[in-house]
């Protein structure tokens, strides 16, 4: 599996740390239920899914990767900074 870093290009999977599902972070004041969903519950889809990968041994960018969990195909990638996942302030 090779992952396309938006900054560095195609790189070996070994350069990356995977965080898991790319989810928008709830606000600090969100309900327990919202936080439970964010921390624990997952769609766990078989097929295309969005994940956060960290280019640990490269440019240190956090990347939102759209990947197919059945075929392992990398469908698209973009910088997580552009994916609007942060909590609203």
């Amino acid at each position, binding site marked *: 599996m090779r992952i396309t870093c938006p900054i560095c290009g195609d790189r070996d999977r070994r350069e990356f740390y995977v965080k*898991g599902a790319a989810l928008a972070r709830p606000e600090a004041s969100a309900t327990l239920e919202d936080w439970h969903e964010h921390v624990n*519950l997952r*769609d*766990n889809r*078989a097929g295309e899914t969005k994940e956060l990968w960290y280019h640990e041994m490269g440019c240190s960018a956090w990347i939102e990767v759209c990947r197919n*969990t*059945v075929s*392992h195909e990398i469908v698209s990638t973009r910088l997580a900074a552009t994916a609007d996942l942060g909590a609203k302030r």
Partner: protein
Amino acid sequence: MRFSGWRVLKEGLTGNKGWAPHWRDPEPQPEYDVVIIGGGGHGLATAYNLAKEHGITNVAVLEKGYLGGGNVGRNTTIVRANYYLPGNSEFYSHSLKQWEGLEEELNYNVMMSQRGQIMVYHNDGQRDAMVRRGNAIINQGDDAELLSREALRKLVPILNYDNARFPIMGGLLQRRAGTARHDAVAWGFARGADQRGVDLIQNCEVTGIDVENGKVRGVQTSRGVIRAKKVALAAAGRSGQVAAMAGLRLPIESHVLQAFVSEGIKPVLDHVVSFAEGHLYVSQSDKGGLVFGSYLDFYSSYAARGNLPMVEHTMETCVSMVPALAKAKVLRSWGGIMDMTPDGSPIIDHSGIEGLYLNCGWCYGGFKAIPGSGNAYAHLIATDRPHGAATKFKLDRFRSGQGLMDEEGTGAQHNLH
């Protein structure tokens, strides 16, 4: 049909023509008391226990492929009860006791081999942790022995005791642990359930779960609608998708775990040995092949195959810890889909929908749990109360944060187990 020494002898002398199929191939009925989704180890053991322990025989096990075609046939066959935390500790203790009587119980040779399992330690900190774990295991009523470096060397001479970075300082031995023939476990439970009237329905994929007013009514399948008073999930790596049919989201991510088998070689390893550093577990099958594995690939996957970096890691660790195996050829490798929970421990609980039950989140430890899980899950389905050995496998622990069982101590978070 029962097995006996006499029967095997007679069949051997008469061309093995008298054996009948081990279970029927019934058409699905329109309605059952209990429908179990998933014909793997846990589903079949649950069906067997419903019929045997609770007299509930109007039961169907629905399997989308063939019986035992999932993780029960894709694991490294290790059976042990050396868990540390309350909750896991009593459950796996219960399960190991069930393993010990399983062949007589099922009249089926599951090749249960209590060859002993050794967790190797490499430094003082790990030794302390092993002492503590060993005491917890003994307190639970199971067996654990701390082995010095010399005692371990005598028992398992083939290991690399003087690796510069990870020298082996000793190990924790559980003599009652070992391996079993994984397929036979599924077949034994399947035959036992079938003999007690359970319908085992293969090539029957569940495509929907009918819920009305918060109560389960039955399932839609590739072979028609089946109504049921109770529906029980036992779908392992596919649990998330099956639960989604009932509108549920589970605290589960499915990951791929790879396993490997080498060519057959002469007996070199009598025990199951696992290493903390680099993580490796290895045993030698009765055919002579080494069966071994390491970590998850650590990304979500339904592919039943992994990537090369983890293959490389596993081989490196294997050759570092057991250098004599360096020239053995790897015959095959495969991947299984693990239903990973945030804390790495399982769920046997109500789903929140009346009549719908959950058995999932077995992570990479489902095989050893099969007899205990079948026993405990059947108890929950039949009585609506948790079995005494599985009271802590609650779904709600993730919401409340109470009773999390993070055996590895890495934190109850999805990407850490």
